[in-house]
């Protein structure tokens, strides 16, 4: 009980957010029962993108180290399900995938996170290509095949598995935000030297956060593999899966939890609409939206929402926080 009390948000606003989250989760939990199969599958892929962009934001959004390795961890998850899928149930394979993602990310982090700035980004980009070609070589050399058939599962069950990852990730993200670890990450993002100065072991903290952020990505990759049916290295390690979460998080805004969720939701819907209606123009329109978003919404959709909210509040309660114009921060 004491633990629950400690974790529960103390402010009214915090409780409101928590209530909203519970409502959304409850809605998503009964969703497959009332919707058509296609909608359930589509919702699962929205959730998948939300998980990817939240995970990305957890590390890159906070620390400012832009990772393009999402596709690598996603592909690792897919391959683990492809190999283990026929021996163990999906949740078990997802756990194995999460553990594998965590360990591999920790190893990669240990090599690269001592570097600062753009080197890390380039390395993670190369990692996807490296894994893609390495797996291709292994498959051809040792298994004399290019791709693998993945045992497909019941889509409602897969949906619930992804929903579970989503809920766990959200809870973890909320707890992490105000924790010692979360604050240390934020400090690293704002000024790494200062963080080291006040005693943060920056390298260790970065490696741990990077590893933690990879686990849900691999887990969800394992779940989504059952939806694809067949994978080969080009499908599993698809660079688009590295870029999409970044775009979604930037579109939504990386400074709050709602940002990446909103960004993933909107862009997945947009992608779906464009692919179905205007396949030839899909990438053109999508790219244009991104350019506009990046140029005119530096803090993403969440940043716009926040400034509108602050303006409204100032109008309703004039001069209540004279020095806090946009500079205050709720607990």
């Amino acid at each position: 009980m004491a633990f629950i009390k400690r974790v529960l948000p103390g402010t009214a606003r915090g409780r409101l957010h928590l209530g909203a989250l519970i409502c959304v989760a409850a809605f998503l939990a009964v969703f497959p029962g009332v919707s058509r199969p296609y909608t359930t599958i589509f919702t699962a892929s929205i959730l998948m993108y939300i998980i990817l962009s939240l995970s990305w934001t957890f590390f890159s959004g906070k620390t400012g180290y832009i990772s393009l390795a999402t596709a690598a961890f996603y592909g690792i998850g897919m391959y683990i399900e492809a190999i283990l899928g026929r021996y163990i149930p999906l949740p078990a394979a997802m756990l194995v995938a999460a553990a594998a993602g965590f360990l591999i990310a920790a190893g990669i982090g240990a090599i690269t996170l001592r570097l600062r700035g753009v080197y890390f980004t380039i390395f993670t980009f190369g990692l996807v290509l490296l894994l893609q070609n390495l797996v291709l070589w292994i498959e051809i050399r040792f298994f004399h095949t290019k791709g693998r058939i993945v045992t497909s599962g019941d889509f409602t069950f897969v949906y619930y598995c992804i929903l579970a990852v989503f809920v766990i990730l959200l809870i973890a993200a909320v707890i992490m935000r105000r924790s010692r670890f979360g604050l240390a990450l934020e400090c690293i993002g704002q000024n790494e030297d200062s963080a080291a100065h006040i005693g943060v072991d920056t390298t260790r903290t970065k490696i741990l956060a990077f590893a933690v952020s990879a686990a849900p990505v691999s887990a969800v990759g394992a779940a989504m593999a059952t939806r694809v049916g067949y994978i080969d290295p080009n499908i599993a390690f698809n660079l688009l899966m590295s870029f999409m979460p970044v775009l979604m998080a930037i579109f939504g805004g990386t400074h709050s939890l709602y940002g990446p969720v909103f960004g993933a939701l909107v862009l997945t819907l947009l992608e779906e609409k464009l692919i179905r209606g205007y396949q030839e123009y899909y990438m053109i329109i999508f790219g244009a939206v991104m350019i506009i978003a990046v140029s005119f919404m530096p803090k993403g959709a969440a940043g716009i929402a926040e400034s509108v909210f602050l303006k409204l509040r100032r109008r309703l309660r004039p001069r209540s926080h004279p020095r806090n114009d946009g500079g205050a921060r709720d607990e």
Partner: protein
Amino acid sequence: MAMLEIENLSAGYGNVQVLRDVSLSVDEGRIVALLGANGAGKTTLLNAIYGLHKPSSGTVVFRGRRIDDMPGDKIIEQGIAYLPEGGRLFPDMSVKENLEMGAYPRGLWRDRKRDLERVYKLLPRLGERKKQLARTMSGGERQMLAMGRCLMSDPKMCFFDELSYGLAPKMAQEVLGMVKELNAGGLSVLLVEQNVRQTLEVADYAYVMENGVIALEGEGRSLLDNEHVKKAYLGL
């Protein structure tokens, strides 16, 4: 036995040697100043003492324990806090969060609420502004916040690097006054400054660094009358 005892400390960057056999000590309850021009090696010395820059030789002993090979968080737990030049705050975090990070080392994190109350009592203006973002504060307030962050770890000794730099003369005076007050409350201080006259007026003892060596040392006020100090630093 001095509280902080530095012996024959040398350090450098690559082939460039910045510190040469620097020895210095700070007694408990005193304000000791470290003066010198830009590039004399003052900040490098602080970083070397604090484990942020590995010294090539020499020892640092704090309250009878060697600290020159301890990691940063352990040194903070030993009771030294270091306010770097410019404060190095986290601009997009609130006053409260900035303060909390001063208690980051594991041994201190649990008691951060109590320390927060103590710091608010000491520097009430921070308590009034706890939700404000650090970047929206004035230069003097920021320096105060940086001080508060140091005090969060309940240190026995503080290093203040260029506290008055970039502040209006009146503000600089006020900040130095705060140092004096904290010292009266029992805090030992190592004060690094370019502002020679004001510093020598509050310091009990002072070292003057030139090109990586201690060129001169003496009681604070006596140095004000030293011919070399007068010529090189006071422009008399």
